[in-house]
């Protein structure tokens, strides 16, 4: 069972845990219905992409645990406390942590609870969870990170506590920097076994080494669109939960996002809500 975890930017939205259903205009999580702009914001964008991908491979719809938080951390605390109490009952096989506020004790306690699950879930971190895992030195307790080049620079700088403090920052992916920084991050214990570096050219990394480079189809206008990194995380999560080997899942997720981008024919003002509906068809095309 895939469980996706994160916050939704709605003040006071109660915590909800349940199975998800994406219908184009709405996203249902348990009994909670998200509509309009909330369907594709942050964690919700990742969830929608995971729903679309799961549907394309005939896998069960993912579960999600989300709560309202606009940055003050109250919802974030509820989210962690709920998972600390219930994750061993939920027993996810794959769990993805996404937009969360960095926290020390609650994050560590959750990972301790996850360790009690047998077999241990495949743990994925993106966004705030990725930043938090590295800042706390617990990256090796995850199986997959999905950074962009800036986040990779942060993972490779062992002194930096946040991307804003990185001393050697890369904006663009090239054939020299990505292998070098990926190896550095892995050797320093700041990246897990698997990574996909999300950029105009995607890199799949296993044990600190580049094993695949994906640049086709190339859709330059995808880069400014907020959320296209979140969707790769959702697609990867869904494919791994559906039984694809991680390395294969990451290559396929990269392709799905690119093909969906091609179908959406985007310009820089295209929104993620116009992009996500194409993921189902793209996944069908890529998976066959």
């Amino acid at each position, binding site marked *: 069972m895939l469980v996706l975890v994160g916050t939704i930017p709605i003040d006071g939205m109660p915590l909800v845990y349940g199975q998800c259903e994406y219908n184009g205009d709405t996203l249902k999580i348990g009994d909670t219905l998200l509509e309009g*702009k909330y369907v594709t*914001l942050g964690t919700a964008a990742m969830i929608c992409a995971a729903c679309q991908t799961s549907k394309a491979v005939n896998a069960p719809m993912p579960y999600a645990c989300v709560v309202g938080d*606009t*940055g003050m951390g109250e919802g974030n605390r509820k989210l962690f406390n709920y998972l600390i109490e219930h994750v061993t009952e939920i027993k996810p096989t794959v769990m993805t942590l996404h937009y969360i*506020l960095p926290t020390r004790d609650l994050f560590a306690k959750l990972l301790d609870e996850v360790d009690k699950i047998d077999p241990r879930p495949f743990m994925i971190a993106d966004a705030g969870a990725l930043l938090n895992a590295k800042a706390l030195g617990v990256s090796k307790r995850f199986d997959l990170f999905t950074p*962009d080049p800036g*986040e990779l620079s942060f993972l490779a700088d062992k002194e930096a506590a946040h991307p*804003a403090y990185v001393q050697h920052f890369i904006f663009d992916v090239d054939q020299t920097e990505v292998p070098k920084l990926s190896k550095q991050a892995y050797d320093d214990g700041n990246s897990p076994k698997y990574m996909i570096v999300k950029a105009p050219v995607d890199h799949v990394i296993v044990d600190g080494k580049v094993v695949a480079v994906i640049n086709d189809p190339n859709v330059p206008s995808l880069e*400014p669109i907020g959320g296209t990194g979140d969707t790769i995380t959702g697609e990867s999560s869904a494919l791994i939960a559906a039984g694809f080997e991680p390395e294969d899942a990451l290559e396929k997720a990269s392709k799905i996002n690119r093909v969906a981008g091609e179908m959406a024919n985007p310009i820089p003002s295209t929104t993620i809500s116009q992009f996500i509906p194409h993921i189902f068809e793209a996944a069908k095309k890529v998976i066959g």
Partner: protein
Amino acid sequence: MDDEKDKALIVFDYIYHAMRAKHVLEEAGFDVREVAPPVDYRTGCDLALEVDTDEVDAAEDLLIEKDVLILDILFMPKSEKLTPIYLTKLIKVSDYGDFVMVRCGNMKVTFEKATGKIVNLSGGGCPDIPYLGMNLYGTILGEGPRPREIGKTICAYTCEHAYEKALEIFNGLKGKKGGK
């Protein structure tokens, strides 16, 4: 010659207050430097402000007057090395024809050249970033809310720098248009 002064470091519980503090102090003419807090005070998402020791009392009084919550003030020897924030070095601008994307570190702001309308905002990882995106989307640079007014994390603070650069570019474009 050894004329470097000892340092006073203002640290905060929430980056929201650090962002406000910087704005308040700079408006009042203080010389403020942004640095990472010492390790014992670090959570991973934080920012401290360094001021000269002979100005710290006045800075503290002003912040209290403006309701900016301070966690602590630390005095450090001049030899103490603090990591400066590199945001001004982390800016890159990409031209997409009718649109411009400004990146600062891990944050991106994209606007339409003709109108200054923000058409996309991405990056970051904390809960306030989707909230920022929702509130800034469709607003005009310089007229709508700013990341520093809404954001509460260092990603939002990084976004503020991208916004500032985007505004500077848009104002330049308007100037060129007006000068024709």
